[in-house]
Structures are given as C-alpha cells and as structure tokens.
C-alpha cells in the first residue's frame, strides 16, 4: 500500500534554524531514509521551498485567478513529503514516528495514495525517440 507522509512545520521556526541545525536534522532524517531505501519501501521524497515562493491558482466565477502565496494560510505549512510502500497503517505509523524523532518539531499527515504516476519524463523521452 502506498502512503504519502506529508510533513508540516512552522516555517517561522524552520527558517530560524541555523545552517548547522538544519544540517543536523537532515542527517538524522537521512539515516531513516537510507534504511527505508534498503528495505525497498521509499518512493519519491522531496523538500519544498518556502511558501513565499508559492503561487496559487483558484477558480472564482468561472475564472482562474493567480494568487501569490500558498493555498491556505495555516500556522504550520506543508514543507515536503515522502511516498512509502508499506503493508498497512501500523507500519506507516512506525516509520512516521522514526521520522518524527529525527525531526522533533515536525507534524505528519499519513495519507493513503489512490492513483500513483511515477516520474514519466523518461517514458516521454523514449516515446519521442521511438
């Protein structure tokens, strides 16, 4: 079963980490990630740039409005996510707890994946050249 682990945190705090603190957290997360890779459970994972760099497209009265900033103004912001391939929620929870220990102030939403399309750029290239 595929799950998305959506990582939320307070940007004011995360962007107040010193470089060393940031690096320390990333190293700890790296340990958890490496293990997941070895176990064949980790799909794509990524860290997003701050919400200040975000643009939102909203529909209003049949028009698509382009708005500066993230979709929702919240106290914690979506900062990144992992796709994991595990047997069930219990296993997803166990991995989330490990990530939570590596990153002490983050919160996670575990969201089962319905449809999954991988990185299809390679497919596009072979189709084009064929």
């Amino acid at each position, binding site marked *: 079963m595929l799950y998305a682990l959506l990582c939320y945190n307070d940007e*004011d705090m995360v962007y107040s980490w010193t470089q060393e603190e940031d690096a*320390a957290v990333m190293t700890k997360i790296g340990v958890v990630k490496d293990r997941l890779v070895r176990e064949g459970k980790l799909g794509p994972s990524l860290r997003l740039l701050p919400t200040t760099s975000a*643009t939102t497209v909203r529909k209003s009265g049949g028009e698509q409005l382009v708005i500066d900033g993230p979709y929702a103004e919240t106290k914690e912001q979506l900062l990144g996510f992992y796709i994991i391939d595990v047997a069930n929620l219990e296993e997803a929870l166990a991995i989330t707890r490990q990530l939570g220990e590596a990153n002490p102030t983050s919160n996670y939403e575990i969201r089962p994946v319905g449809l999954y399309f991988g990185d299809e750029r390679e497919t596009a290239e072979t189709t084009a050249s064929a």
Partner: protein
Amino acid sequence: MTDPAWINAALVGARPQAVGALLRYFRDLDIAEEAFQEASLRALKSWPRNGPPRDPAAWLILVGRNAALDGVRKRSREADLPDEAALSDLEDVETPLAERLDGSHYRDDVLRLLFVCGHPELPATQQIALALRIVSGLSVKQIARAFLVGEAAMEQRITRAKARIAKAEVPFEAPGPAERSERLGSVAAMLYLVFNEGYSAGDGEARAQLCGEAIRLARLLLRLFPTEPEIMGLTALMLVQHARAPARYDAEGQIVLLEDQDRGLWDRKLIAEGLALIDKAIRHGAPGAYQVQAAIAALHARAPRFEDTDWFGIERLYASLERIQPSPVVTLNRAAALAKVAGPAEALAMIEPLADRLENYFHFHGARGALLLQLGREAEARTCFDRAIAQANTAAEANHIRQHLDRLTQDCARAMSAPPVATRP
C-alpha cells in the same frame, strides 16, 4: 537537534511577531524587550516539559504581557506576583488568544517593529544595530563583533538609537494603505542595509550571520505581505547574492571574482528560490529597483560558466535601473556590462563623466584602470590602480588590485581578459 536547539529556533522565529505585539501593547521598546525576555525564560522552563505550544508567538505575547504587567504592579505595590502554578494553565488560554491574533494583526505589528528600527531619522549604522538587537535578538557582543567595534561602543550606539526612537513618536494605530506602503519601502531599505553589512566586508562568521538574518526577515515580511513585487525582488536579490557566498573567498580570505568563482559551490536551493520569486514579481508588471537588481543577479546565476553570461541582457537591465534609480554607481555597473558587449572604449566614454562624483569610490578607479589596460594605456591604468588601492575599504579589496598591478608588471596580456568589473563578486 537537541531540545534546547528547537526551543531557541522557536524563540528566534517568534521574536519579531512577539516583540512587535508587545511594542504595540506597551508602546515602549525597553518594556517590550524585557517582557519578551521574561517570556523566553518561562518558555525555557515550560516548553521542554509541555512540548512546544501550537503558536509560540501567541504564547510569548500572552506570557510576556502578563509578566510585564505584574512587574508594573509589583513595582507599584498594588499586587503580589502570581505563583508559578497560574502559568502552567497557559495551554487553555492560548487557543482563543491565537485566534484573535490572526495574520493581519501580526502583519502591522511586525511592520511597525521593523519600521521603528529602520526609522529614517536614524543613521544607517544605528538602524542595523537596532534591528539586529531588537528584531533578531542578537546579543550586543555578537553585533559588536560583526561591526568590529567594542561592546561598550555598540551598547552606546544602541542606547542612542533607542533614545531617538522614543522622541520620534511613532504612531501606533494601524497604518493606512499609503502609510503602509511607505513603511514597507523604508523597511526594505533597512533590511538591505543589514544584508550589505554582512555581504560587503570579509567572510567572517559574524558577518555571514547578518546576511542570513536579513533573508530570514525578508521571508517573514513576504509571508505577511505576499503580493508586494518589490519585497519579492528584495528577497530574491539577497537570496541569489547570498547563494554565491561559499565561492566568494578563497582559503586565504582573498576575494574570488565572479569570473573565477567555482559555480559548483553556489547554493542552488537559494538560487531556485530567488528565481521563483523573480518570476512571481514580474507578473505584477510593476518594476522596481530591487526587482531589476534581482533580475541582474539572476542572469549571472543562470549562466553555467562566466563566458555564458548574458551581458547584453545585463546592460539593458542596468539601463532600466538607471531610469528607476539614477546613480553614478549604477552607470558604472552598466559600463562594465557595456565593455563586454561593445568594447572598452565605449565603456570608458560612459564612465569618464562620473569622475567627479566617484572620485573617492574604490570600484570606479579599479574599473577605469581595467578598461584603460584593455585599451593598452598602461601608465594611466597604473595610476588608476594606485588610486583604487588608496580607496580600498578592506585588505581583500586592496590585495585584489595589487594582483592587477603585479600582473601588469609581469604580463599585460594576461590581465587584459580580467578587468575588475564593478559587478559584485
């Protein structure tokens, strides 16, 4: 990260909002600072036990406000201090308070706080010191180190700045749209001063911290004012320039010119964030000085190698900057780009009329010398380089020009391809 580290990051992250709200409440910088200090001490006791509050800023504002009020009461002997137990129930009070303190509330509080620190009546050095002390919470010792002055002198500078602010009568009601935009402009200028203080002189850790601080506060400002293209431009400008920091100095602390920098050392994440902001800003169709400067920095950042630099685009952008913000320094930079596009003679003709106004400007003499050198006018070039050394602000700048003089002595031909362009390394 150990526990105290996340608490510290949370305190630093919440500080502008919290001190800003406390300033609105008490209308006095010293009381606001003390109140925040007291709240931080209590956080250090309470947070490791109870975990971080959902909204650290709201927690600190509430606790700080109560602590300061208690202090006033205690001093006036109207009431006793509350016991510690009263503070442990904060989680209950926190939620409704957090609801009341929505984004727009913080927005004007943070803007006011930054505006106070960057008050136009304060000289630049006092603005930077005050902002670092009050908004960033750096210690006087840290700030003194960055400015290379003694702690006592820095303490005095900050005290003087506060005294001026107290007399300046900053309005505390919510600003109107015109005033808000005016404040944003002066706050942006102050943030860029902080950044430049860190960027300009040396690669010491204390200085690099100032660049990081300026970027952190710019991101905060942008989160509070997400549709301001000039704040996007300012943030992008600082991000892209700061991205080059790891490549700007060699192991001996000597300046590495843009053309010689190892572009593999540039921080791609900061550049990506900067480029994203420029894209967003351009859509507003309201160009400004920060946006144009950011676009120039972006053209440098986009070039995989120095030879790939889009000098034509850079020259055009400096021409628009000249229209928006006429200044001899901008023209000097435009000339450096023009030299690449049209040759040294055209560039020299562009900067000759600036001689009077840039008489004491290091980069003018360095750039003029390089152009003369390219034109084979070696004796004049040497005079320019000597004048540049006399005007150098740092040992690294002087050394850099000395290298040109050495090369001139050894081999003019080699120096021709390496003019000390005024473009920032």
